[in-house]
C-alpha cells in the first residue's frame, strides 16, 4: 500500500520528484568526483614516491651473502629482494625488500633480518609508502595527513550536501504533511511514516545515485587528463598522472553517497513523523510567516506585488537559506578571485618578468663555489647565444657612516632616526650600517665601470649612493635620495669595510665611483633594510679582501642574458650548454625566464581553473537548491496564489511577483558582492601600489559578467519552470482542495 501511495504521489507530482532526483544526482556526482580525485591523488602519490625513492617497503643494511639473499628471496611473503647498488657501500650491502602484501611488512621484516643475520636496528621501513597502504609503524611519528584529510573533506562534503539536499526532501515531504496527518489519525505509527518516506526516497534516488557516480568517475578522469594538459610534466618534481579507478573506490563512494542521501531524507522524515496527528492534519502546506515582516523596499519599488513577493521570500527564508548563501559566496569568491589573480598577474609581470626582461634569461646558482676561483667564467661569456654572462657572488660586511657624510636629503627625513636597531647600530663616531658586497667577475665589473662612466679599474669598489625615502611606503614607485653628501663623496676615496659580527676586523677599499645605477643583475637591493650601503667589487679585489673580512655566501650566481628576441627553444639550448660547461663537476640549479613565465602562467591558469571550478560548484549547489525549491513548492504556491486570485489579483500580477522573487534571489549576491569587491580591490590596489587605471584596463569584467549572467539565467529558468507549473490555477479546485479542514 505504501508503495502504491508513493508511486501515485510521484506520478502526480513529477516536479517534486524531479528536484529530489536532481539533488541525489548532484550529491552522488560530487561525492563520486571527490572520491575519484582522492583515489587518483593517492595513486599519484604512490607513483611519485616509487619514482623518487623506489617502491621498496623495507630495507636491510649490512653484509649479506648470496646464500642469505637467496634465503630472503625464498621467504614466503617476500616477492623480491634486490641489492641496491647505489646505496651500498664498502662492507654494507643495502637490500630492498618487496612484499606481496603490505600488511606483512612490519611483521616479517624483523624475522627476515634475523634470518639474514642483520641486526634489527639496521632495518629501515619505507614509512611514507607504507602509510599510504594503512601500514603504520609505531616508530613512525611523522604526521601522515592524506587519509585524515580525505576523511575530513569527505565528512565536510557529506555534511554540506546533507544541509543542501535535505531541503529537496523536506519540500517534497512537507507538501504532504496533511496526508500523513490523515495516515496518523487512522493509526499509522511514526515509524511506519518514516519507513514510507525513506522507501520512497530510496526508490527515487537509486537511479540518480548510480548515474551521479558514473558521471563523477567520468568527471574525475577528465579532470586528471585536464591536469596533465594544463601542467604537463614541465614543473620540477611533477610527473604525468595516469588516471585510474578501483572497484573498492566505487564501493566506498556508493556507501558514502547512500549514507548522505539517507541522512538527507531521514532528517525531514523524522521531523514529519514526530508531528502530532493534529499538527499534521491542520497543516495546509502554505507558506507562513512566524511574525509580521515588512518588505518596505520591495513594496516601494514594485507596489503590492513587491510586498507579497518579499513576504513570500521571507516565509521561504529557511528553504532558500542554502541557495542564498551558496549563490552569495560563489559570486563573491569568483569576483574576488578574478580581481585578486588579475592584480597578482599585473604585479608579478611588472615586478618580476618585465623588470628583468633585459636583465636575465637564464639564472644559474652554483653551489659551494667562489667567484674569484671560477675558471668557467670566460667560456660562459663566450657561449654562442649569450649576449652577456655575469658571474657574481654576494657577501656581507658593515660600514661606519659619520654624520658629516650624510646627505642633506637623508637628514631631512630624519637620517637614521627611524632605522631599526637590528639594521643600524649607533656607535661612537657615527652609525654602523650593513654594506652588502656584490662581487662581479672582473670583465663584468669593468663593463659596469664603463656603463656608469667610471674609469675601468679592478683595484676598487663602486658604491651605490642612494637611499629610499623611508617615509614613503610605496615600494612600486620608490623615491631615492643621495645617501652620502656629494662633498664627502668626492673627498672620501676609501670605504672601510668591517667584518659583520666582528666589526674590529676591517679592510680599506678604494672607491672608484659613487653612483645610483646598479648592474643588470636579478637582484633587489635595500628591500628590507633601507639603510644598507651597497658595494660592487671585482673578483680580483675580493681575492685579497676575502681573507681579511670574509662573509661571502656559499653560492655563485650566473646571470645570463640571451640575444634579443630569444625563443624558449634557444634558451633551452643555451641552458643545456651552460649545464654541459659547469654542471659536470658542480651542483647546479638553473632557471629559465621564458619557461618560468610560461610555468607561472600555467600555474595561474590552473589555480584560476581550480578556484573557478570551486566557485562554479558552489553556484551549482545554490542553483540546485533554487531549482529544488521552485519545483517543489508548486503545490503550496498554487494554494497561496489561489487566495491572491480570490481577492482580485490578476495572473499578470502573480507573474510579476514571481519575477520579483527571481530578481531578489539573483540580485542579492550582486548587491552584496559589488560594494564589498570594490572595497577589497581598493584595499588590494592600495597595498600593492598598482594604479587604479592600470587595474581597470585589465579588470576581469567579462568573466564576472558571464558568471553573473549564468546565475541570473539559471534563477530565471527555474522560476519560469515553476511559473509554467503554477500558472494553471483552477481557483475553485484549489480552494476546495482536500487539505482544507
Amino acid at each position: 500500500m505504501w508503495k502504491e501511495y508513493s508511486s501515485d504521489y510521484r506520478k502526480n507530482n513529477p516536479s517534486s520528484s524531479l528536484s529530489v532526483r536532481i539533488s541525489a544526482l548532484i550529491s552522488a556526482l560530487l561525492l563520486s568526483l571527490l572520491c575519484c580525485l582522492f583515489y587518483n591523488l593517492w595513486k599519484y602519490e604512490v607513483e611519485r614516491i616509487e619514482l623518487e625513492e623506489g617502491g621498496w617497503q623495507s630495507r636491510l643494511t649490512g653484509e649479506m651473502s648470496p646464500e642469505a639473499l637467496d634465503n630472503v628471496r625464498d621467504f614466503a611473503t617476500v616477492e623480491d629482494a634486490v641489492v641496491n647498488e647505489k646505496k651500498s657501500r664498502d662492507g654494507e650491502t643495502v637490500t630492498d625488500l618487496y612484499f606481496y602484501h603490505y600488511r606483512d611488512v612490519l611483521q616479517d621484516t624483523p624475522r627476515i633480518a634475523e634470518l639474514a643475520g642483520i641486526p634489527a636496528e639496521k632495518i629501515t621501513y619505507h614509512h611514507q609508502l607504507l602509510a599510504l597502504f594503512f601500514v603504520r609503524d609505531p616508530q613512525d611519528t611523522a604526521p601522515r595527513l592524506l587519509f585524515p584529510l580525505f576523511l575530513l573533506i569527505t565528512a565536510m562534503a557529506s555534511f554540506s550536501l546533507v544541509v543542501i539536499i535535505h531541503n529537496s526532501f523536506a519540500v517534497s515531504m512537507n507538501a504532504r504533511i496533511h496526508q500523513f496527518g490523515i495516515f496518523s489519525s487512522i493509526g499509522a505509527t511514526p515509524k511506519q511514516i518514516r519507513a514510507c518516506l525513506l522507501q520512497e526516497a530510496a526508490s527515487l534516488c537509486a537511479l540518480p545515485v548510480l548515474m551521479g557516480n558514473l558521471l563523477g568517475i567520468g568527471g574525475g578522469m577528465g579532470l586528471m587528463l585536464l591536469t596533465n594538459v594544463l601542467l604537463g610534466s614541465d614543473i620540477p618534481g611533477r610527473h604525468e598522472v595516469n588516471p585510474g579507478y578501483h572497484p573498492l573506490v566505487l564501493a566506498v563512494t556508493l556507501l558514502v553517497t547512500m549514507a548522505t542521501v539517507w541522512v538527507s531524507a531521514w532528517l525531514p522524515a523524522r521531523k514529519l513523523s514526530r508531528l502530532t496527528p493534529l499538527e499534521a492534519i491542520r497543516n495546509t502546506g502554505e507558506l507562513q510567516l512566524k511574525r509580521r515582516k515588512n518588505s518596505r523596499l520591495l513594496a516601494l519599488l514594485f507596489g503590492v506585488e513587491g510586498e507579497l513577493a518579499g513576504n513570500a521570500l521571507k516565509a521561504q527564508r529557511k528553504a532558500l537559506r542554502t541557495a542564498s548563501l551558496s549563490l552569495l559566496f560563489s559570486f563573491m569568491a569568483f569576483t574576488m578571485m578574478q580581481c585578486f589573480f588579475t592584480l597578482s598577474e599585473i604585479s608579478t609581470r611588472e615586478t618580476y618578468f618585465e623588470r628583468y626582461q633585459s636583465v636575465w634569461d637564464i639564472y644559474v646558482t652554483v653551489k659551494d663555489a667562489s667567484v674569484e676561483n671560477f675558471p668557467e667564467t670566460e667560456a660562459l661569456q663566450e657561449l654562442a647565444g649569450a649576449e652577456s654572462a655575469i658571474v657574481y657572488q654576494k657577501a656581507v660586511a658593515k660600514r661606519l657612516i659619520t654624520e658629516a657624510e650624510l646627505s642633506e636629503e637623508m637628514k631631512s627625513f630624519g637620517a637614521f632616526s627611524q632605522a631599526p636597531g637590528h639594521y643600524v647600530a649607533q656607535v661612537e663616531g657615527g652609525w654602523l650600517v650593513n654594506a652588502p658586497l656584490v662581487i662581479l667577475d672582473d670583465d663584468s665589473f669593468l663593463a659596469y665601470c664603463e656603463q656608469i662612466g667610471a674609469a675601468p679599474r679592478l683595484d676598487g669598489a663602486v658604491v651605490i649612493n642612494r637611499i629610499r625615502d623611508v617615509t614613503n611606503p610605496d615600494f612600486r614607485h620608490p623615491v631615492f635620495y643621495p645617501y652620502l653628501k656629494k662633498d664627502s663623496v668626492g673627498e672620501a676615496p676609501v670605504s672601510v669595510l668591517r667584518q659583520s659580527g666582528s666589526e674590529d676586523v676591517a679592510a680599506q677599499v678604494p672607491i672608484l665611483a659613487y653612483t645610483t645605477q646598479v648592474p643588470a643583475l636579478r637582484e633587489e637591493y635595500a628591500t628590507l633594510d633601507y639603510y644598507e650601503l651597497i658595494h660592487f667589487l671585482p673578483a680580483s679585489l675580493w681575492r685579497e679582501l676575502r681573507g681579511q673580512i670574509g662573509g661571502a655566501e656559499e653560492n655563485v650566481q650566473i646571470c645570463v642574458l640571451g640575444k634579443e628576441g630569444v625563443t624558449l627553444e634557444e634558451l633551452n639550448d643555451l641552458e643545456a650548454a651552460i649545464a654541459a660547461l659547469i654542471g659536470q663537476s658542480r651542483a647546479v640549479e638553473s632557471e629559465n625566464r621564458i619557461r618560468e613565465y610560461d610555468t607561472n602562467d600555467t600555474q595561474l591558469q590552473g589555480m584560476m581553473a581550480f578556484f573557478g571550478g570551486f566557485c562554479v560548484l558552489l553556484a551549482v549547489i545554490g542553483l540546485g537548491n533554487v531549482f529544488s525549491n521552485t519545483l517543489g513548492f508548486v503545490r503550496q504556491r498554487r494554494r497561496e496564489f489561489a487566495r491572491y486570485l480570490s481577492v482580485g489579483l490578476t495572473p499578470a500580477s502573480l507573474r510579476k511577483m514571481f519575477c520579483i522573487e527571481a530578481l531578489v534571489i539573483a540580485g542579492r549576491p550582486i548587491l552584496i558582492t559589488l560594494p564589498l569587491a570594490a572595497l577589497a580591490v581598493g584595499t588590494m590596489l592600495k597595498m600593492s601600489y598598482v594604479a587604479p587605471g592600470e587595474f581597470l584596463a585589465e579588470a576581469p569584467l567579462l568573466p564576472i559578467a558571464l558568471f553573473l549572467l549564468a546565475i541570473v539565467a539559471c534563477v530565471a529558468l527555474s522560476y519560469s519552470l515553476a511559473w509554467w507549473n503554477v500558472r494553471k490555477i483552477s481557483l475553485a479546485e484549489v480552494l476546495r482542495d482536500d487539505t482544507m479542514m
Partner: protein
Amino acid sequence: MEILKCQGLRKVYGTGDNQVVALDGIDLSVDKGEFVAIVGSSGSGKSTLLHILGTVDKPTEGTVTIDGTDLSKLNPTQAAIFRRRKVGLVYQFYNLIPTLTVRKNILMPLALDKKKPNQEYFQKIVDTLGIADRLDALPSQLSGGQQQRVAIARSLIYRPALLLADEPTGNLDQKNSREIMDMLKLSNRSLEQTILLITHDEKVALEAERIITIQDGHILSDDRREVNSLSM
C-alpha cells in the same frame, strides 16, 4: 458496560496572556453501544474533546480511559496503534488520501497492521454504506456524500470500540446529511457501535439517544432521550 470514561479533563492552549482554556474539568462516561451527540457553539471545546478522545491531542490535566486503556500513558507509537484499532475518526472534510482508491482508503487501518480484511465484513460495510460499486474510484471522483461514506467505512473497518465523528454532515447537503446520519445510526444499532458525534446542528443532534451540551469548556447538560427508528 462503560467504554469511555473521562475524569477532570482540562485542556489549556497557550501561555500567559494568550492562555485559552478549551476544556475545564470535564467528567464523562459512555457505555458500549451508546450514540452520543456532543453539541455546542463554535469554540465551546467540543472538537478539542474529540481530539483528546481520538488520541490526536493530549489533555493538560485529567484522565481518559477507553475500553480499559488509559490514554495518558500512551507514547506516540502506542497512541497510533490504539487509534488504528480502537477508535474510528470521521471528519467534516473526509480526510481521504487523494491518491489511493476507495478500497485502499477503507482498508488502510488493516494494511497498517499488515492484516488481511475479513471479506464478508468488508462487503457488508460497503454494501450498507452504498459504495460497493465505487471501490476502484479515486476520492476526487466521488461526491461529498460518497466521500463521507468512504470515511465512515474506513473508520468502521477495524470494528473500533468507539467511533468519533466531527461534524460529519457539516459539508453535505440535506439529502446526503440525512443518509450519513442513517448510516451512523445503522452501524450503532446493527453493529452495536458506540458513537460519539460532534455537531453544532441541533437537528443532527436529535438523532442521538443522548445529547451532551458543552459551553466554554464545561458540560452544561447531559440529556438522555428516545429516538425515532431509521428513516431508510
